[in-house]
């Protein structure tokens, strides 16, 4: 599959696309309605060339049909649910049939294989296990290739390093910022790197730069492989780097990529920068047509030095919406606004400052002091800060440092206020 010619791939994709369009038309009322409104019937979609006629799907379409409205099968066929954060507290829910779990294992198996992992490897999975797709996604892929999987999940760094040494971990799977944090902890705690058998890292779930990759590779003495995925499409396993690290191979026999102009929605030619869109063509539980990821990248259809012919995408260079990823958690500034709105009828002037300190993301919420909540006592101001921190944590799962600032210090602008400053150098 990974080395077939472009023509062969077209044939495979077209057939699978036809099946999927039928599946969504006859099983998902939402898609049937959208297609009927556009005057489209399943027969109109004959090949991948017709993909551009189909409607787009967005995160809010999934949320509007919370929790299971977009599933194409009865719940008795769904054997797994995962969820990720949505814009205003409602999670984005995804579901998998047994067949889907098989696909997911397969694409993650390809991912690990491309990273050079095999049966004799010990894979330490420090992605979070739970509703987040990272942990279990990597887990099933690791088992599929026959490696020895260590499902340690996130956190408890001391124990991570202890087991890494005791078990002889060779492959590390976690977020790149956590990998950098582990590197630092190893150096600071005086653990000898020679005692560890780490060889390769499989890192994703957040954007990271070439600089950061070089740093991790140097400090951990491993090859650091970039992987990409999103729960809506399947989870991790949508695309992966090979040993040449020159673009991420997309599992396009399962997920057809397109690049569109985020404003005009036109499909852009190969090589142009635009928003990445995916159509799933093998999933049964939650098939998605032209799902807008909001991630910006380009596509490259040339054959790779590794021999794979499946299309590559660049590392993502940004987003076409205002979503942030902080410590692996999705955050929309509008979530913060909702919290602040509850303080009174109007939102006070605020600014979110995101930074990276000691390889961990930090989030600061600057809030202009306004007369209606300014108090003469330190105690009351501190209580206010605490109240906001609490409310933000409940709404988003993130801990924020509230910094009170003087009035008029946050820049005003005409039109949409600039609410976020991201100081992390991610490009």
């Amino acid at each position, binding site marked *: 599959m990974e080395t077939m010619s472009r023509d062969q791939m077209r044939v495979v994709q077209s057939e699978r696309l036809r099946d999927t369009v039928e599946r969504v038309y006859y099983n998902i009322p939402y898609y049937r309605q959208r297609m009927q409104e556009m005057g489209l019937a399943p027969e109109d979609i004959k090949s991948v060339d017709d993909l551009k006629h189909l409607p787009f799907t967005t995160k809010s379409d999934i949320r509007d049909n919370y929790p299971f409205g977009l599933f194409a099968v009865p719940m008795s066929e769904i054997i797994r649910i995962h969820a990720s954060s949505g814009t205003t507290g409602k999670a984005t829910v995804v579901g998998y049939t047994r067949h889907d779990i098989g696909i997911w294992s397969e694409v993650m198996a390809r991912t690990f294989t491309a990273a050079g992992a095999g049966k004799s490897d010990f894979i330490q999975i420090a992605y979070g296990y739970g509703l987040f797709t990272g942990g279990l996604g990597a887990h099933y892929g690791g088992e599929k290739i026959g490696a020895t999987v260590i499902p340690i999940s996130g956190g408890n760094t001391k124990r991570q390093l202890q087991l890494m040494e005791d078990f002889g971990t060779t492959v590390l799977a976690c977020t790149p910022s956590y990998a950098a944090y582990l590197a630092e902890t190893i150096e600071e705690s005086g653990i000898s790197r020679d005692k560890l058998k780490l060889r390769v890292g499989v890192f994703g779930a957040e954007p990271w730069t070439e600089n950061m990759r070089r740093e991790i590779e140097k400090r951990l003495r491993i090859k650091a492989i970039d992987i990409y995925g999103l729960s809506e499409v399947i989870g991790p396993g949508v695309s992966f780097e090979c040993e040449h690290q020159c673009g991420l191979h997309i599992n396009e026999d399962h997920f057809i990529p397109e690049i569109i102009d985020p404003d005009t929605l036109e499909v852009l030619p190969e090589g142009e920068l635009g928003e990445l869109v995916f159509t799933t063509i093998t999933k049964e539980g939650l098939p998605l047509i032209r799902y807008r990821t909001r991630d910006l990248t380009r596509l490259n259809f040339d054959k790779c030095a590794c021999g794979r012919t499946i299309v590559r995408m660049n590392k993502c260079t940004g987003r076409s919406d205002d979503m942030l990823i902080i410590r692996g958690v999705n955050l929309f500034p509008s979530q913060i606004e909702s919290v602040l709105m509850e303080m009174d009828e109007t939102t006070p002037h605020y600014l979110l400052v995101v930074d990276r300190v000691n390889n961990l993301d930090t989030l600061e919420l600057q809030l202009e*002091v306004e*007369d209606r909540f*300014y108090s*003469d*006592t*330190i105690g009351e*101001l501190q209580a206010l800060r605490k109240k906001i921190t609490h409310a933000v944590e409940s709404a988003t799962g993130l801990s924020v440092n509230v910094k009170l600032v*003087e009035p008029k210090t946050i820049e005003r602008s005409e039109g949409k206020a600039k609410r976020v400053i991201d100081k992390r150098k991610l490009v």
Partner: protein
Amino acid sequence: MIIKQLSVFLENKSGRLHELYSSLGSANINVSACSVADTSDFGIVRMIASDPDEAYNILKARGFSVNINEVISFATPNTPGALASCLKILAEAEISVEYLYGFSVGEKSFICLRCNNPEKAVMEFQRHKLELISANDLYKF
């Protein structure tokens, strides 16, 4: 007897305190008492100004976040135990003190105090014949 105190929010940035006082100074407003309460991130400057309403307007116009609160002010002999006996009076009357600031020169000590019931505090101090300082004494020095 109830005195208007200005309370200003300041970030911990160099020059803010100077900016605050020069705004008042250039408007010919005198500050007769002040105190700065600080945390690592911000400070609250409390002061008694010679024209509290005018000072309020000036500071607001300059973009500061300002409140006016009520405090009482009194004088005691500059001797050990003098302040303690004043605080005892308040405690017995079940009045709780938020904060106070003071200074002694010569034979007298002057205290500015914020509590949860200034009217009652004034009554109690008058009953015990303490020397309360009136607003007029402070406002136009």
